[in-house]
């Protein structure tokens, strides 16, 4: 998805989920998905990759989405390939599908007929998104692929923040990418976590999550290298926190124990208090357990009068390893514009949730430019980032 286009056309106020396109995979299940329309490899990405990749059309869908976001992020940063080549560039990318073997035809060919087909395995081995970024940009530096399930995208920004603070690199590219795939589609269906309708986070009638796909990348530099008048500066990453529930393989702690710790750690890291926060972009998947736990955690941290709380997954779907990075950009867009739309798909809030959230008809002015984007993950992982918008992203490009 093009996030700027997404925001400027107010796509966050509508839903466009549909049945799984047969071009992606065939299934007898009827849960809707949010699929990217049009080519997954953008023109800019094709130009970027064309320098080094003999056949960009051989790339997997996650890799294509990632390169599209990467090309857009690098262009927006105002940094040339020539300049990047002189810097120590760290790359940290989150994914789930992008690091999963997906050549099932090749696997069954080996399993049922004893015919090994190395092509799919070569694609699996060569699919490392961080290495791919270095290859197409011609850069050198650390490269990490974070696979913390649904918090991966959030954690890559935290990892990059640590690298920059410790002088490991001069600049970092962080983000996440995931394409729709039959594996998580059937996996979440097997856990009965997919809604039959487009997801309705925090809604009284919510029935689970809806899978989406996408990619998002950000370019991070030490704060002293850009002043506030720099037209390419769109926001600041002020703090990062992470903590584990130590509770259940797939369900969050019912009181959001790990999330509370992650948010408090992120605020401490930023040197801020809950009163300084003007917006919480929640994980808000639309599952019963997530939304309950998350609202309990928000109440624990922010008390009875939290700042506006929204989930953007009603508009994007759950993009898994990309979600945290996608939501960082949506958070900055909202903070930069000074207002936020309510949660798409949430018509009437579940009254049992412990914190108030914005419903789909709400449109609220924000009292400040600092917000939190938070993620929860299978395995009990929780992460939070404190972000500050410098100004509206669209204004920054004018």
């Amino acid at each position: 998805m093009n996030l700027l286009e997404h925001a400027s056309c107010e796509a966050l106020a509508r839903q466009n989920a549909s049945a799984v396109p047969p071009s992606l995979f065939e299934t007898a299940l009827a849960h809707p998905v949010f699929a990217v329309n049009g080519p997954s490899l953008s023109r800019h990405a094709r130009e970027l990759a064309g320098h080094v990749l003999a056949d960009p059309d051989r790339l997997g869908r996650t890799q294509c989405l990632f390169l599209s976001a990467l090309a857009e992020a690098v262009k927006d940063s105002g940094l040339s390939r020539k300049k990047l080549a002189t810097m120590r560039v760290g790359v940290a990318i989150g994914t789930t599908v992008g690091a999963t073997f997906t050549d099932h035809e090749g696997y069954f060919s080996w399993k049922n007929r004893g015919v090994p087909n190395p092509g799919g395995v070569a694609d699996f081995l060569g699919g490392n998104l961080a290495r791919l970024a270095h290859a197409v940009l011609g850069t050198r530096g650390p490269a990490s692929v974070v696979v913390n399930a649904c918090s991966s995208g959030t954690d890559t920004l935290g990892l990059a923040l640590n690298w920059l603070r410790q002088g490991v690199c001069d600049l970092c590219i962080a983000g996440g990418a995931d394409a729709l795939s039959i594996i998580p589609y059937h996996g979440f269906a097997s856990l009965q976590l997919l809604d039959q309708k487009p997801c309705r986070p925090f809604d009284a009638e919510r029935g689970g999550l809806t899978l989406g796909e996408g990619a998002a990348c950000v370019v991070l530099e030490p704060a002293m290298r850009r002043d506030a008048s720099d037209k390419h500066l769109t926001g600041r990453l002020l703090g990062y926190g992470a903590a584990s529930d130590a509770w259940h393989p797939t369900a969050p702690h019912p009181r959001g124990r790990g999330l509370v710790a992650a948010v408090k750690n992120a605020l401490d890291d930023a040197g801020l208090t809950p009163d300084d926060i003007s917006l919480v972009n929640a994980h808000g998947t639309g599952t019963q357990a997530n939304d309950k736990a998350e609202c309990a955690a928000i109440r624990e941290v922010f008390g009875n009068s939290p700042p506006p709380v929204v989930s953007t997954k009603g508009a994007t779907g759950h993009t898994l390893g990309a979600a945290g990075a996608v939501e960082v950009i949506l958070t900055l867009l909202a903070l930069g514009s000074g207002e936020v739309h309510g949660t798409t798909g949430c018509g009437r809030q579940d009254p049992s949730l412990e914190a108030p959230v914005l419903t789909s008809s709400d449109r609220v002015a924000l009292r400040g430019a600092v917000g939190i984007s938070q993620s929860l993950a299978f395995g009990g992982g929780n992460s939070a980032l404190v972000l500050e918008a410098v100004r509206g992203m669209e204004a920054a490009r004018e």
Partner: protein
Amino acid sequence: MNNIALISAVTIDSGNIALPPGSARELRRADNLTRMAVAAVSRCLGQAGGAAGLAELDRLAICVGHGAGAIETNLAFVESFFAHKDMCGSPTLFSHSVHNTVAGYISRIYGIEGPSMTLTDFAWPFVSALEQAVCLIRAGMAPAALVVGCEGGSRFLQEIAVEMAGRQVVDMSRAMAAAWLVAAPGTLSVQSAGITAVNMTPLACRPEELLLRLSEKYPEIDGDTSVLPWGYALSLNRAANEALHLEKDIHWCASADFGCACVDFQG
């Protein structure tokens, strides 16, 4: 840059799994990858048992690195939903095929509530996990960290590797796990070595090289590790124990067409 204290370092293979007491119920559905990793952590913490202050640490970090990871569980899940005529498949297999399953199990079994980071990389995933553990400790996000490298073994990848090379050059079918306990200086009162630097430089290469590892070089150890994709981890573990117990300064380095990885120890 501050040294990081190395407290204990172990590796295990599938022949010497000893799971922690009382973990049988928690691990009853776990796959081979997870059981190996938990067994390595159990031995690592056992080796560090005398470390004063360890029991009081409630915010350990968990950093896990693997290459193929849970590929066999993932393929079993795929088989399960194709076998059920495109209905759903096994929820247990799906939840165990998620990349950070190992970190989740370790967190639950040991009640660890600190940050966790799982990384995937076919080059030197254990070094990737170590690099992140050092980074999290230096950032003040945790006073100490468990560093885990694990591979569950895959007969499928083994046969693909033979097909790629035309002969057996690597044994992908065997499982292994490594676990280290590292800490901020002065956190634990116990004999330790220092880790002064962890550096990794990735290089572009043919994807097949990441599986076959024909160009890989690392300090040799006893026994033939040339066919083991994680032979580097055994070599690095020996270097760690020499720094720890023989108090030697060691510069360990591995190199290959896909890059290089270096760890500096101060004995």
